[in-house]
């Protein structure tokens, strides 16, 4: 039985991209330790615990060989006129492969996290923003406002790695940092300082947050009428605005996924607009956390290869970006795709799949590429277990600040195809095709 210990391993199971994990490999078991959080431990263990000889390809729910599954894949892809590549939870190398296939087949590309990402993207494409990265937060941030986001729930080690550190370079210590939470986080353990200082919480339900962001923006800009009428906690928000103005390096943290209400892009704009105003006199930055499910990794590849982000269709032979019309859910609902290639190749617990039934009741056939350990997807005509980067294969992963990309290492040997190999096999099957 092969045993090995890998150190300084990077983790792709949330956008934080911690790279200080230790992996103990023993045959087919994989135990993550070192810095690994519970989520990482479970993910590594779950993916690795599928025996190499267990079924890994299915056609209509029945185990088949990879060749048989691929034959069915070709039957579906070859005649497809309007394929939709959804999910897209993969790394850079997986996405490179998918992009080649998408270009070849004229596919529409959309990620499982697009709806959330768009809240940020619309704001960037409209006005831009001022942002920062994890190590800057770690060393500089003296006032940290978590807005509407349960940061620890989405990014388990955020506070440990970016806030409560022993020696921030430009602060006396971490203990004196101010952490302010606007919203209703489930628990405050992560945000509580090592010496037990609990963060200040301005408890607001999600339906009040859009208003709160707009109010804070006005407070910082000094643009509100003097006798403003509001049932929001005005004094508390005023105090936050004041502290941000006094801060040397304030940081506003949010995860767009948590800003789950309509037109939340305007809330993002209120926050980034506030940051812009603060930077007239002091320094302040946004930290729009993302990157989970490989959303920054596959989006980055799309951007550099096509010039456009997710929700871009290559059907006309060139990129056509439409953030509204090209949503997976809408395209399926309106029966505008004749095939769904669903890629969920990272976290096996990311099991939600879109509803493939259109308004007229038709089912869009689905091919699913999933990590080992993922459940069988009922609706999938074909399901193939693909090599998970960081477990079965190497790869590259963009973490939460979009700047640092990490090498993912192969830990164990199984025979699953990588997402890129799958794409190349399909392309070989399609043969030469004049453009």
């Amino acid at each position, binding site marked *: 039985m092969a045993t090995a210990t890998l150190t*300084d391993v990077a983790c792709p199971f949330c956008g934080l991209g911690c790279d200080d994990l230790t992996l103990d490999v023993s045959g087919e078991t994989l135990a993550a330790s070192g810095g690994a959080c519970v989520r990482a431990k479970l993910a590594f263990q779950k993916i690795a615990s599928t025996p190499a000889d267990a079924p890994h390809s299915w056609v209509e729910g029945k185990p088949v060989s990879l060749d048989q599954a691929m034959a069915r894949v070709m039957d579906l892809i070859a005649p497809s006129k309007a394929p939709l590549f959804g999910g897209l939870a993969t790394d850079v190398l997986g996405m490179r492969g998918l992009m080649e296939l998408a270009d070849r087949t004229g596919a529409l590309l959309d990620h499982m996290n697009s709806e959330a990402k768009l809240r940020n993207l619309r704001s*960037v494409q409209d006005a831009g923003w001022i942002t920062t990265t994890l190590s800057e937060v770690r060393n500089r941030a003296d006032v940290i406002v978590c807005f509407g986001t349960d940061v620890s729930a989405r990014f388990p080690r955020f506070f440990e790695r970016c806030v409560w550190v022993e020696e921030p370079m430009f602060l006396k210590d971490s203990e004196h940092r101010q952490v302010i939470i606007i919203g209703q986080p489930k628990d405050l353990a992560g945000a509580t300082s090592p010496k037990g200082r609990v963060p200040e919480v301005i408890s607001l339900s999600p339906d009040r947050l859009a208003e709160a962001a707009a109010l804070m923006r006005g407070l910082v800009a000094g643009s509100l009428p003097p006798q403003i009428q509001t049932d929001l906690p005005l004094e508390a928000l005023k105090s936050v605005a004041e502290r941000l103005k006094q801060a040397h390096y304030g940081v506003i943290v949010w995860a767009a996924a948590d800003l789950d209400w309509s037109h939340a892009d305007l809330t993002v704009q209120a926050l980034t607009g506030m940051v812009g105003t603060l930077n007239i006199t002091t320094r302040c930055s946004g930290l729009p956390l993302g990157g989970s499910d490989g959303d920054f990794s596959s989006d980055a590849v799309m951007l550099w290869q096509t010039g456009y982000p997710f929700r871009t269709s290559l059907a006309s032979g060139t990129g056509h970006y439409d953030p509204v019309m090209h949503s997976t859910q809408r395209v399926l609902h309106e029966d505008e795709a004749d095939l769904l290639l669903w890629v969920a190749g990272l976290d096996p617990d990311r099991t939600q799949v879109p509803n493939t039934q259109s308004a007229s009741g038709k089912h869009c056939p689905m091919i699913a590429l999933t990590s080992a350990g993922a459940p069988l997807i009922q609706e999938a005509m074909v399901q193939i277990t693909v090599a998970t980067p960081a477990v079965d294969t190497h790869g590259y992963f963009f973490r939460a600040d979009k700047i640092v990309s990490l090498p993912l290492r192969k830990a164990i040997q199984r025979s699953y195809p990588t997402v890129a190999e799958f794409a190349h096999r399909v392309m070989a099957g399609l043969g030469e095709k004049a453009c």
Partner: protein
Amino acid sequence: MLTLLKGGKIVDPTRKLSSVVGDIYMRDGWIVDGPKPGERIDEEINITGRIVMAGAIDMHTHIGGGKVNIARNMLPEDHRFDPVHRAGLCRSGCGHAAPSTLTTGYRYAAMGYTAGFEPAMLPVNARQAHLEMGDTPIIDKGAYVMLGSDDFLLRLMREGASQERINDYVGFTIASSQALGLKVVNPGGISDFKFNRRKLDLDEEHSHYHVTARQIVHTLARALHELKVPHPLHIHASNLGVPGNFQTTLDTITGAEGFPIHLTHIQFHSYGTEGDRKFSSEAAKIAEAINNNPHVSADVGQIMFGQTVTCSGDNMTQHRNAGFGNPKKSVIMDIECDAGCGVVPFKYKDKNFVNALQWAIGLEVFLRVEDPWRIFLTTDHPNGAPFTSYPHLIRLLMDKSFRNEALARINPDAAALSTLGSIDREYTLDEIAIMTRAAPAKILGLKDCGHLAPGARADVVVYQEDSDPEKMFTAPEYVFKNGTLVAHSGEIVAVTWGDVHVVKPQFDRSIEKPLGDYFDRHLTQKLGNFKISDDEIRDITNGGGLRVHACERDGRTV
């Protein structure tokens, strides 16, 4: 496979060949003397009457890395007007200001360029830069890694670390990021912006580290010299775009104290404060300084009128200029105790006084610097204009009457202030060949590029001569990359993947001990994962190779 290009007019400044009729043989990707005894010529192409040059080299073009992807993300509206359809061998993409990587490679190659160098690779973002360059087909690539506002260097300098120690750190950074050179951007300023500084002059002290930009420039220029890295320090000087900054530029030259330096996008650093609007050209003074200092070279960063996007590591300057953005949006970032970036779309207008004068200043610098070996043809793609405007720029340099017609169309106040109209110089074909291939290869230390002598890479371009240089340089008749015909009259006929050019300076590996410790204590990444191995480069370049250039250099120039 032996290919003969027969009877072309060879323009090869490295060998002082000026339109000399001759033959060029290519075997297996290299230029060779001729057939071995008894060897058959597999392919013969008659190029009688055509001009033949080595492949062009863009020594400063933002083709990879986070800031370019930010620009792409921000500007779908700019891409919509330049769609690129999947056709023939080429995949789809898009062009204009921040083109897709695929389109970038195809368009460069179709224009006779066989190499392009990304000048602002942040160490912590190096992997992304290489991934993007890896997806840029046909052309060779390489990058200059950025230091000078990174906390590790500034800490070393504050502690008074020895030059040797700093050299080790510079050597380590170049090697572990797989770079070809080193760049400094607004020395110390990107860091001081994080401490709320808004302007940092050459001799002002950094508010936290108390070192000056002058010290940073000198220390890094000396480090490269002592590490024998061929390309001298690539400097984006302090005070970019600020009226009166010509003095900073002149002081930067003096500050290097004779160590070789390269001043990048010098056009943006040649501004005076004369005139009613307190904005004027000091191109003559800058050119004179370059003429008088043989250890100094520069690329121009010419602006062209139209929509583009500025992508810079200089977040201090970009934040200051964000209000001029057109469309009005900007992304400004502080990055990882390492660097920063700022992306601001811009529309340069010929009727705008400042823009028109910027245009004239760039051309003045081109025409007033006498030695074409030390001035390089760039638009600082995409900051001054997209690289696709090079043929037009070449015509402006080669054709005085064309230039003066253009001058007559710009903002009249700017035209009146500029001495451009009085300059008679027209670049010759030889000079264009120097500044676009022979000189970049020389200054980057690429011994087997930029010329056509046996032993060179078979990167060869064949042009149909034309009285209109813009036409001539837009779509050469034949472009060979490593001996493969990749483009024919503007059409891509083969898609290959170029190499990555790097240097591997010698340094004391013991620097990794304090560095590893620093990473663990202060950063959010492990040193081991920061480093990019040779295998990794090969893994991400789609089959392109890794070309390591020797670190050797003549002694101190002055």
